[in-house]
């Protein structure tokens, strides 16, 4: 066992320093880490390693002359961490005539036969069995398997370069290698094949430009004699041929390690392996493109060496042949003294959250007090603060199960219906911008009824997606009437009910996911029978549409292939559906709402979770993809399974969430979770949504808001849509319902909002209103301390602390006999406090 300082010194050998980090991936963060913890995190770790040396893979079969395989060497620390020892391992082959091993651990085939590679690191030894089965004839370079990955890795086919829709400087490649055949023709045939010089491959434009030997606006993309250079040159040298028919094709991608816990400053080499249709495996680590999700947490080099930077959690993705594989990195401070929190078993939320927190050496915050819980859960579930009467009633309830009782009572309130039909209205874009007035109100009524009756969400989705006809008969037809076209419909449907953004795949393969245009137009073919006509039963009504289904419409055409694309479930199979005569939505709806659907329940659970916390378990909630993994997959899986088991019961899910200790945590951080804002170890405050903020203001001050264009007496969250004149709601981010994206709601804070609260009429006019609550209370309540208490209850839903009463008494005294003015200013101050503006 080596001293940790020595180990650290050895962890930064010269050969590693040559591996540059991916440009723009956290240089600054890395510098900060280096400054703050120069000795590295291992110092805090136990100095010894335990157990055996682990080598990936433990055995290998090499079948291709030019395709070596890397070895990744790790060992375990006493605290269970995995340490990457690849860079300090010594490799030795048992038979150099069969294989040789580079100092970096790459095993290269020499001749058919078997051999062993001995790996030694920090005194530990492991042996890897290697079998080499080379073909009798040297395999030719493959355009698809050798050249295309190089074009992706060097960025030649990126959107900023020749992958741009119009190409660059007359040379166009398919974006991210979506169309190898087209790229082959561009390279070999276009302009009489000037890009390839088969007689003198080294001077081919395809090489001389990226090597910088000929002027190239894209700069130098290849290093001379690099792997990439050698692959392209080899392919040209062999005649720049296309791949033979029947050649093995790429099937899947895997990454190692898939999940790892490391300390700040630690490094970990990734290994990316491609599987082919003939069963062979290929180490494509040096041909993959790496990216890191949260750059402040970690940085990754071009060759897959990950450098942990700050405490936290992130995913590192590798892309090869438009396929992604993701590795999760937890960067933790080693804490030998950490006392794990007992894992609760009575609530699946707490169980998996605590398990994760224990893994991360994080203690959760304490539980919030009753008053705080009452306000938080009232706002989240009903979109309104509790009134003083409700606060007092809750205080008076001594039942240990009062919090659960409160949750059940909230389900029964009309405010609950208002709140959740507002959310669905936003998401389903129920708006007079594209719908008629009757349609908006009909759909609104339908949504309210669905929420009020707790319609199971699978049935909810079925009803929404099956809509047809005029809104008078079928309110949910509004879902389709909102869409501009089929593209809009499929994108909205997948984003709302699967949490997946498909827009990119309309024109090219999705840049961060495995969706292709075939996937996109497969979905398109489910929905392209849907159209609209002017609703003849609502003559003269603006935007009056009836949704019609044209069963004669054939499948959509994939523009890339120019062929009809049969309906295809997302990432799945193609159901056998007739080209006409059947409403294809039925098959889609059946697939979507099936308990086996990998997206539907999961995305809804994640979405609903996000309404109670500052983020989803996957965030953003409507951008589910393999490169954006869940922060707590076990939690999401458990909640999803429970949600399905409950019959897609939204209230059951909400009940599970809000009755958990996780939801009821205080927002006050402790020493161990101060840095954690992702794992729900504490409640992260967030600003009240626009409608809630305004409704709470109205309730607190007793001065109603009058909305032009809305029915009299409607509160902000009851408004039918955003086509209402309200500067306040606009300023605080009420969505216009133009997108099926949660991101349309602006939950951020800005200076204008602050100025509006300080100087705007929304508060000033209310606290000074002669008919408002403040003035009435100031007149009727002669006892200042009681007046202050009442103002606290209306504004902050709690009683003032003794210290606060003291300050208030001085404040009122400073106004002399101007009691009303003092009360108004006092409430103004309370309403301007963060305690009022935040759910905390």
């Amino acid at each position, binding site marked *: 066992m080596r001293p940790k300082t020595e180990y650290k010194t050895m962890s930064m050998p010269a050969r590693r320093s040559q591996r540059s980090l991916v440009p723009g991936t956290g240089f600054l963060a890395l510098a900060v880490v280096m400054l703050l913890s120069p000795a590295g995190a291992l110092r805090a770790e136990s100095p010894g390693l335990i157990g055996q040396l682990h080598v990936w893979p433990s055995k290998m079969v090499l079948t291709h002359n030019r395709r070596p395989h890397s070895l990744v060497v790790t060992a375990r620390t006493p605290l269970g961490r995995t340490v990457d020892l690849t860079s300090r391992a010594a490799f030795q082959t048992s038979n150099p005539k069969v294989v040789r091993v580079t100092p970096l651990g790459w095993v290269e085939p020499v001749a058919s036969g078997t051999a062993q590679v001995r790996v030694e690191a920090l005194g530990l030894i492991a042996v890897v069995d290697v079998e080499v089965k080379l073909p009798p004839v040297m395999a030719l370079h493959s355009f698809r398997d050798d050249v295309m990955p190089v074009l992706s890795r060097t960025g030649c086919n990126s959107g900023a370069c020749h992958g741009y829709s119009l190409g660059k400087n007359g040379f166009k490649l398919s974006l991210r290698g979506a169309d190898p055949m087209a790229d082959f023709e561009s390279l070999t045939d276009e302009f009489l094949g000037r890009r390839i010089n088969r007689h003198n491959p080294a001077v081919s434009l395809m090489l001389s430009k990226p090597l910088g030997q000929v002027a190239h606006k894209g700069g130098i993309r290849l290093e001379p004699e690099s792997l990439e250079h050698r692959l392209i040159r080899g392919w040209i040298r062999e005649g720049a041929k296309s791949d033979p028919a029947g050649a093995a094709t790429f099937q899947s991608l895997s990454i190692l390690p898939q999940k790892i816990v490391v300390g700040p400053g630690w490094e970990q080499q990734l290994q990316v392996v491609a599987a082919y249709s003939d069963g062979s495996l290929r180490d494509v680590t040096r041909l993959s493109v790496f990216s890191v999700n949260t750059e402040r947490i970690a940085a990754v080099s071009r060759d897959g060496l990950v450098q942990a930077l700050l405490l936290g959690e992130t995913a590192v993705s590798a892309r090869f042949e438009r396929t992604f594989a993701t590795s999760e990195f937890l960067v933790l401070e080693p804490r030998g003294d950490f006392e794990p929190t007992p894992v609760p078993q009575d609530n699946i939320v707490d169980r998996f959250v605590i398990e994760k927190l224990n893994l991360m050496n994080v203690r959760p915050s304490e539980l919030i007090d009753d008053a705080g819980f009452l306000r938080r859960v009232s706002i989240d579930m009903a979109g309104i603060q509790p009134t003083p009467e409700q606060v007092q009633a809750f205080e008076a309830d001594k039942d240990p199960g009062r919090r659960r009782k409160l949750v059940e009572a909230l389900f*029964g309130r009309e405010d609950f219906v208002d709140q959740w039909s507002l959310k669905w209205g936003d998401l389903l874009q129920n708006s007079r911008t594209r719908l008629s007035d*009757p349609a908006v109100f009909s759909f609104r*009524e339908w949504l309210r009824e669905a929420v009020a009756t707790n319609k199971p969400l699978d049935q909810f989705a079925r009803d929404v997606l099956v809509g*047809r006809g*005029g809104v008078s008969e079928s309110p949910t037809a509004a879902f389709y009437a909102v869409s501009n076209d089929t593209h809009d419909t499929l994108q909205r449907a997948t984003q709302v009910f699967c949490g997946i953004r498909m827009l990119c795949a309309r024109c090219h393969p999705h840049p961060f996911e495995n969706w292709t245009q075939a996937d996109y137009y497969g979905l398109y073919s489910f929905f392209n029978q849907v159209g609209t*006509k002017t609703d003849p039963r609502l003559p003269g009504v603006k935007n009056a549409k009836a949704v019609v289904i044209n069963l004669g419409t054939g499948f959509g055409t994939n523009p890339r292939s120019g062929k009809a694309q049969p309906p295809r479930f997302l990432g799945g199979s193609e159901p056998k559906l007739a080209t006409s005569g059947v*409403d294809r939505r039925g098959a889609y709806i059946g697939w979507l709402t099936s308990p086996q659907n990998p997206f539907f329940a999961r995305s809804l659970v994640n979405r609903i979770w996000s309404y109670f916390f500052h983020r989803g378990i996957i965030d953003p909630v409507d951008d589910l993809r393999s490169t954006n993994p869940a922060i707590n997959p076990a939690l999401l899986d458990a909640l999803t399974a429970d949600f399905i088991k409950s019959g897609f019961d939204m209230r059951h899910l909400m009940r599970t969430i809000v009755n958990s200790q996780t939801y009821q945590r205080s927002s006050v951080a402790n020493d161990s979770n101060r840095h954690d804002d992702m794992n729900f170890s504490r409640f992260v405050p967030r600003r009240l949504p626009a409608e809630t903020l305004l409704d709470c203001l109205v309730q607190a001050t007793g001065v109603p808001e009058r909305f032009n264009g809305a*029915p009299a007496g409607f509160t902000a969250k009851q408004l*039918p849509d955003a086509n209402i004149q309200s500067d306040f709601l606009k300023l605080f981010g009420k969505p216009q319902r133009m997108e099926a994206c949660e991101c349309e709601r602006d939950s951020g804070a800005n200076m204008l909002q602050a100025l509006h609260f300080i100087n705007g009429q929304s508060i000033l006019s209310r606290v000074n209103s002669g008919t408002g609550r403040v003035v009435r209370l100031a007149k009727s309540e002669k006892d200042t301390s009681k007046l202050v208490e009442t103002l606290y209850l209306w504004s902050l839903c709690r009683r003032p602390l003794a210290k606060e009463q003291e300050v208030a008494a001085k404040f009122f005294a400073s106004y002399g006999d101007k009691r009303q003015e003092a009360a108004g200013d006092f409430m103004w101050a309370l309403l301007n406090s963060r305690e009022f503006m935040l759910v905390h």
Partner: protein
Amino acid sequence: MLRPPTRFLACLLACAWSTQLVAALPTITSLSVRGLQVGGTTRVVIGGTNLLPAPRVVAGIEIAGQVIVGKPAANAVTLDITLADGVEPGVYHLRVASGQGLSIPQLVTVDRLPQQPLEAGVRIEKLPMALHGRLAGSQVGTVQFAGSRGQSVVIDLLARRVGSTLRPVLHLHRSDGRRVALGMPRVDLAGDARIAAMLPADGLYTLRWHDLQYAAGNPGNYRLSIGRFDAADLVFPAAVTRGQAREVIVLGTGTKETRVEVTVPRGARGLVATRWPSSGLPVGLRPRVQTSRWPEVVETSAESRKLDSVPSAGNGRVMAPGESDGWRVPVKPGEKLRFEVFADRLGSPLDSMLEIRKPDGAVLASNDDAVRSDSRLDLTVSAGLSHVVASLSDRHGRGGRRFVYRLVVTRTTDPAPPDFDLVVAANSYNVLPGGWHVFRVDVTRRGYTGAIRLEAVGAPGRFRLVTTSIPAGAPGALVMVVSPPGVGGDGANRPDRFRLVGVSEAEGTSIRRPVQVASHPLAATQPWLREDLAVGHMAAPSPIVFVTAKPISGGALWQGQEIAVPLQLTRAPDAIGPVRLSLLTSQKVPLAKGKPNAAAAIRGTAATIDIPVPAPVKAAQAAVTKAQAALSALKKKAAAAGQPDEALKKQLERAGADRAAKLKTLEAAVAAQPREAIYRVTVPPGLPLVDYDLAVVAELRSADNKTALARSFSTVLRLKARRSLEIAPRADRVVRASRTPKSDVTVRLRGELLRRGGFSGQITVTVAGQPKGVPAAKVVVKPGQTRFELPLVVPAKVTAARLDKLKLVASGPPNFKTPKIQVSASQDFSLEFANNGPSEPPPPPVARSLE
């Protein structure tokens, strides 16, 4: 009874200082319940104006008894109204009659349910029940009722079906707030809502309702029926051939289909009401069927969907989702056929999609929406076809027992039988005792141009109709309703309901059509209510001006000219105010591009004529006012003193005498007002040459001329429209002339103009219709002259031997003072050339009288 001077004074004061309508008719502004219970007594609070004296309810059904509850007021009367047991449920008119006349009607539903106004916090103890109320804006109605587990309840909100603007949404909750059912506006209920629910538990249920957009408009009336009852939303088949009897299915609230036998009279047209099924508790609109002049085939199976001939109609239902009904229709090559679906227009939820297919299934034509969501298409049958299949389905693939349709197949080349419609603007008329009221009946002629006789049907004979014929070709007539003296006394609150029927008078026709009110909220579903007319008899005359139109010499409406209608105004002694005269004619104002074109209408030369109060009357009126004020002040002083002293008594005497003298002066001044007046009527130049009725309306205005106090009509003048300018007819329409080849020829067209009815303007005569290259000729005929000679130069290059389609056109203003009003006349002629000769002037025309 006030003594005349006192009454005169009272009226005088009213005229002088009040804008209140003296002859104000009763109006109904609110009804506590808009329903009456059959075989029971319903308490109705009527809110309105001028409900006194002697208010009484008149409905379209027999009222067994009505008792005023409490003390009636001019703005509110409470009545207990009892209906006999045998009254047919449905929707009827309800009017209020008082000594001041008859109100316009309101709609009330009549059925066996107890009727109750909706009051705040109301809780229904026993079902069924009908509640009546009104919603405005974002108001939400609430009611509670007790229900038991398994109880079947229907909740029906009737609003749009009876003309309300409310688009109701119903919410049924349990006592713990849990939702039981939602009722949204339904297409097959014309936008109304209905819930049919099986109650899940014993307990109290809360029903809430509101406008879909929380914007209930006016009227926002509704009727809420809760319990178990039946309705007649749809009838299948929707049409029955005239003169035949058929069993139809009435589709209502329940799932069970009830049947009723319908017999359609041979002469019926449009919708006719049918009986209710014998069982059940009918509520709402009466069941009705469309009368048809064609065979109506009703589907009983897929094989039965076959028409034997064209024209005829097929009646069916798209019973199951995705179902398509194919009707076999016999055709002949070359026939022009029209396939028209009636579904939306019947109230069916079906959004039809119609396809015409060949026998082999090939689609010949298809249509989705033509009239609202109903389909219609025209097809010319191609060769080789003996039949086609008309396939009918729901555009959205739905179906059900309420998806009723009627497919009518006709030949577009078949002429429509002659017919007409008769329409009036109002359905209540008020007549002074011994006076009359004039109203216009408009005719929409569809192939029938003959005269129409109007008959009052069901009238008790207490009024008389005058001018009850509509002349041949005329657009309508003015009808006088004359009330004999004395009717206004006892019969003041007993109006006469009647129907007015037009009967064709031309030979070979037998058409009877009811006169219907033009606008009625239930015109599409209960059209017989449009025929319910009534005459109210006012108790006593108000200050009034009677106007009499004297016969006009010449007696014709000369096109483009002005005629003077001499009037005699007879003022009642207390009719002091200004008078406004206006014109009423039997001509509907013609439309130009969809907008009224006043220039084409018979109209007063001035839209209205105001006859102001003469200065002496005004002065006398002011003097009376002053004298009255002085007298009142003294009386007040005397009353304050208790026992007035002699001086005060003398002052009182003098003031009384002064007032009496001033009144006398005023009476004399009123009597001395001019009685004669002339009302000038402008006749449009292109007025069709038929008979028209004219009447002058005189309005007595308040002193400030802002309000009409009373209105009277002159007797009706019937005048014929005539041409005021003509070109004397020629003996021969061909004008012959000779010409030499290669040289121009000048033909002198001679003629004579006939000026009628005082046509005095300058006339321009020209030629129209000449071929290109022949210059237009023009000649001006001065006032007083009639003959003209028009040189028409035909250039040599025009080599045709005969020029047809030429036209002599004469035009000019009948009155040189109104040069913009131009009248024209024309005459067709042909020009025939004979070669090799000089041009010979054509012979002069042979004039003949057109009288």
